[in-house]
C-alpha cells in the first residue's frame, strides 16, 4: 500500500436541528484515506458513521471543517465539482440499495455514465457503455438479470447491482454505507467478499458497518463514539 493520501477530513463538525433540539453528530473528526486502503467506520447507532461517510462522499456538507480530495477542498469548490466527484470519483453503495425501480438492471448500472455525458456523447458511446456495464454485471454473476427490474431481484442481487452501478465509472473511492445491513449473514458475506475482491484489484473502499467480524478483515478500523474518532 502506498502512502498517497486520497481523501482527508479535517476537524469535521456536523449538528442536526431536530425541532427545537440541536443534536451534534460530529464533533471534530480528522481522517485520512490512502489510495488502495479498505477502511471501515464502526460505532454504535447515532455515533455519526453515516454522516461522516456522506460528508466524505460530498453528499452532505459539514458545519465546520474541510474535506480535501487530491489536494482540492471539496466544499469550497463549486457545486459542479462536487456533482462531478459523486459522478466519477466516488461510487456509493447504500444499505437499502437505492436502485431506480422503473429502470432495468442494465439501465440502473449505465445511469451514472448517462448523467456524466452530453446527449451527443451518449448517443455515440451508449453501445460501448452498455457492453462495459454488461461485463461488470457478468463479473458479479448477474448476466441473467440484465433486463430485469430491481423489484424482480433478491436483496443480494440488488446490492450487487448497486455495486455494479457504483463502479461503472471506475471511481477512485467506493463508499459503502452498511452494504450488508439489510441482508442475511450468508448473502452479506458474499457482498463483503465482492468488496474485498475489488479492494484487492486496487479499489479504495470506505465502508460503514456494525459488523466487527467483517471490519476486522479490512486494513483499518475507524471507531466513532459520540461524534469523535476513538482508538
Amino acid at each position, binding site marked *: 500500500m502506498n502512502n498517497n493520501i486520497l481523501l482527508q477530513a479535517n476537524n469535521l463538525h456536523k449538528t442536526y436541528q431536530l425541532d427545537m433540539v440541536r443534536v451534534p453528530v460530529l464533533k471534530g473528526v480528522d481522517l485520512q484515506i490512502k489510495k488502495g486502503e479498505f477502511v471501515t467506520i464502526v460505532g454504535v447507532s447515532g455515533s455519526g458513521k453515516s454522516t461522516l461517510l456522506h460528508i466524505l462522499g460530498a453528499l*452532505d456538507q459539514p458545519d465546520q471543517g474541510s474535506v480535501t480530495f487530491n489536494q482540492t477542498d471539496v466544499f469550497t469548490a463549486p457545486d459542479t465539482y462536487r456533482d462531478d466527484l*459523486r459522478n466519477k470519483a466516488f461510487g456509493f453503495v447504500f444499505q437499502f440499495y437505492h436502485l*431506480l425501480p422503473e429502470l432495468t438492471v442494465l439501465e440502473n448500472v449505465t445511469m*451514472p455514465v448517462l448523467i456524466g455525458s452530453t446527449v451527443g456523447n451518449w448517443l455515440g458511446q451508449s453501445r460501448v457503455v452498455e457492453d462495459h456495464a454488461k461485463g461488470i454485471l457478468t463479473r458479479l454473476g448477474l448476466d441473467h438479470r440484465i433486463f430485469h427490474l430491481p423489484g424482480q431481484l433478491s436483496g443480494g442481487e440488488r446490492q450487487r447491482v448497486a455495486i455494479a452501478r457504483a463502479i461503472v465509472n471506475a471511481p477512485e473511492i467506493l463508499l459503502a454505507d452498511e452494504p450488508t445491513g439489510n441482508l442475511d449473514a450468508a448473502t452479506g458475506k458474499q457482498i463483503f467478499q465482492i468488496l474485498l475482491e475489488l479492494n484487492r484489484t486496487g479499489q479504495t473502499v470506505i465502508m460503514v458497518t456494525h459488523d466487527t467480524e467483517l471490519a476486522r478483515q479490512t486494513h483499518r478500523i475507524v471507531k466513532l463514539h459520540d461524534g469523535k474518532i476513538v482508538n
Partner: protein
Amino acid sequence: MKIVDSATPVIYTAGLLRVQNPDRTNTVRIEGIDLAGHLAVTKFGSGLHRYNKNPKSVTLSKPAQPPDEPDAEKLYGLIYGLDISGFSYRDPDGVYQRYIHNYTSCMISVIPLTISGKIMDAVTPARTQKFYMVDDSRTKVYDIDANYVYVDFNVLQKMLYMDEQQTDDNRTIPARTTQIHIKVKPSVPINDQTLKTISTAWFDYSDGLDDSDNSLLKSVEVNRWETYNAPLISAVENEKRLMIMLFGIISIVAVFLILAIFYMIVVEKTRDIGILKSIGASAYQIAAIFLAYGGVIGFIGSILGTILGYYFVEHINEFQNWLINVFGWRVWNREVYAFDEIPSRVEPWDVTIIIIAAIVASIIGALVPAIRAARMNPVEALRYE
C-alpha cells in the same frame, strides 16, 4: 377604376309582404337588386335554393308566369328570406321544410319617400304590387333571412318613385339608389387606403354632375361590409372575447393543476431524486427532467387538443344539433346572435399561438416543483419514506 372588380346598385326600403296561402302579412325589409349584378358582387347566389338547381328558372327583371299555367297573369319575381315567419320550418338538424310553393303570388306594399326622406303627399301613401315568389334566400345571417325580401331594382325604383322624375317646374330629378355595392379585385386589400381611393373617385364623379341637389351626393359614405354589419358581428365578437377570457381563466387554473400534480410527483419521487443526486446528477439536470416532462405533457396535450379542437370546430353545428336532439339544449340561439349557425373558422396563427402557450404554461406549471426538486438535499431525499 383599376381596383374595382364589379359594382351594383341596391335600394333598401321597408314594407309589408302579404301572402294569401298561407294567409299572413309580415313586415319586411325590401331590397331592390339587379340580380345579375348582385350575384357578381356578393355571394348572394350561394344561398338561393332554386337558382342553384336551375339558374335560368329564377328571373326578377322580367314578368313571368308559372311554366305550367300559360293563362296565368305575368308578374315580376320576388325572392324571400327563408326564415321569414311562417314560410318554413327548420328542424333541430338544421334541415328546412318549405311551406311556400313556387310561383305563390304575394303583395308588396311600400311607402315612397321624397328625395329628402318625407312621405310623398302627391301620391297615395302606400303603393302595392303583386309578385310571384320564385325563390328563397338563406344567407345564414338569421337577422337578414328572417326580414328581407328581394325584388328587381328597376321595379322597386319605380314603386318608390326613385326613377327619373319630372317636377311641375320642369326640373328633372335623376334616378336614385340607396347604396352601391362594390367588389374590389382579389389582389386589392380592403383597408382605409382603398376606401379613400373609392371615396375620392366618387366625389370627383359627383362634383362633375349637373345636379341641383348636390348635397345628397356629398353625404355618401364609403364603408366596408363589416362596418355596415357591425351590430351583427359585434355580438359574436363579444361572445368570442368572453370565450377567450373564460378559456384564459381555465388555462390559468390548468397551470396550477399542473403545478399541484408535479409537486406530488416530486414528493413521490423524492428518493429517486436523492439517488440521481448521489450518482452525480446536478441541480440543473434534476430541474431539466421535470421541465422536459412538463414540456412533453404540454406538447402531447396541445397536439391532442388541436386534433380534437379542430374536429369540434369543424362539426360545431352538428354537435349543437345533436345536443338539441338528445337533450333539448340549444346553445346557440340564432334570434339572439343574428347568425343562423355558429360561425366557426380555424385560424392557423391562433392555433400556433395556443400550442406554444400550452407548452409554455405546462413548463411554467412544472417550474416551481422542478426548482424544489433541484434544491433537495440528497441525504434527506435518500432518507425520505
